């Protein structure tokens, strides 16, 4: 299958551009679309040109929305400690979750900030390509039964201090609705974040302000090295000096921008290096 040819059609006829995705993975995913929908490439091209609903559905199938509450607890434990000194003198704290999926890490982040008494200073925004995910983010309702590890993660991050401080109850932030088998983020927390659609690949960064923290977890892994660098550069420009970027656990920075960040635990810290011109 000539998937590169198909990607050109997709770019030409829709608002989506996947030409910067990793070759093998986009090839495989398009192959899966063909199999699942019993199509050949010509039929897929035709559908792409004329069937907008199909395109939206296909994009949902191609993009990945895996996330969880306090994903990789060790990262959040580290942030919990780091935030104290890093953010406490800020009058306003700006945080962006790029590719926020269903928003679970946005709420995880807010819970930590609340425990540190910083919630009233926070401006937090989550963006995603996928409108369904944005509406899930806004609702803050998550499937419960299959995600019992959420509570485990929560306790690992917030309740494993050995100094005998009182336990933070899960119900402080969530209501468990057994009947409908879901977890609901409590209203006071749900009211804080903004969620809006943004395509990291195609659109310029839609914010005027700079950020103290940018999360972009397991999003760049789907892109090729060139596109990764382009987006890392945008993040770099949008961070305050000393601001931090949190990527997925097995994501790194390659190429030129590698030297522009210092790795501190899970955080990439924007270098204070004015003398380096680029």
């Amino acid at each position: 299958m000539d998937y590169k040819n198909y990607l050109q059609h997709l770019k030409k006829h829709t608002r989506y551009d996947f030409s910067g995705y990793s070759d093998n993975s986009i090839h495989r995913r398009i192959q899966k679309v063909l199999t699942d929908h019993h199509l050949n490439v010509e039929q897929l091209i035709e559908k792409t040109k004329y069937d907008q609903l199909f395109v939206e559905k296909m994009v949902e199938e191609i993009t990945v929305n895996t996330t969880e509450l306090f994903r990789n607890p060790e990262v959040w434990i580290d942030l919990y400690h780091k935030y104290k000194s890093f953010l406490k003198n800020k009058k306003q704290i700006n945080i962006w979750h790029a590719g926020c999926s269903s928003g679970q890490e946005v709420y995880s982040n807010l819970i930590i900030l609340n425990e540190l008494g910083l919630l009233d200073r926070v401006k937090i925004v989550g963006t995603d390509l996928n409108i369904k995910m944005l509406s899930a983010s806004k609702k803050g309702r998550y499937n419960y039964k299959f995600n019992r590890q959420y509570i485990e993660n929560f306790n690992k991050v917030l309740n494993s201090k050995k100094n005998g401080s009182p336990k933070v109850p899960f119900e402080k932030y969530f209501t468990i609705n057994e009947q409908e088998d879901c977890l609901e983020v409590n209203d006071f927390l749900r009211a804080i974040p903004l969620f809006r659609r943004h395509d990291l690949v195609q659109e310029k960064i839609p914010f005027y302000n700079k950020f103290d923290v940018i999360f972009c977890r397991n999003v760049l892994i789907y892109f090729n090295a060139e596109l990764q660098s382009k987006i890392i550069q945008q993040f770099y420009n949008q961070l305050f000096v000393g601001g931090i970027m949190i990527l997925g656990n097995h994501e790194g920075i390659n190429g030129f921008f590698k030297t522009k960040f210092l790795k501190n635990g899970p955080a990439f810290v924007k270098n204070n290096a004015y003398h380096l011109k680029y």
Partner: protein
Amino acid sequence: MLRNDKRYKAVVIGGSAGSFSIVTRILSKIRPDFPLPIILCLHRLKHVRSGLVESLNLKSNIEVVEPFDKDRIVPNKVYLAPSNYHMFIEFDNSFSLSTEIVLNHSRPAIDHTFSSAAYAYRDKLIGIILTGANKDGAKGMKEIAGKKGTTIIQDPATCEVDTMTKSALRLITPDKVLSPEEIIDFLNQLPNV
């Protein structure tokens, strides 16, 4: 018959229940100048994140790493699929990672690693499936066979759990069915590239 002068580019090994001790044995007996990259995809418990790569390194004659996305694949190194990621081999001989949906109840899934390796290395690939309690890896082995790569299945009689090897045997006739010791011998007598 395998041609002795065939120039391989990589070895992929997949396994689940019981495979950790076999892999440890292979790596502790592999020759230190082994000329190829060894790419491991082993099932593990989702929340037991650390420890596996460290314990493999204690015994291995070759350095074992959990690759980062886009890391280049180099010879004489062992790569272990990181927990909770699928691991793919790209056409330019680098890794890419993905957190997409679990496959065969697993992330990492052996089928993903094996089929992407089959596409990237074609007949220059050796695929080995070890003991395990799940059918993951069988389709991947079929892809490797389809690209004329070399396929090796651990002899089910030597497996702690033989579901994985038997599932693979149902889909393909492998080039070899070998005991763990024979797998070690086979790898060690591969010619230098």
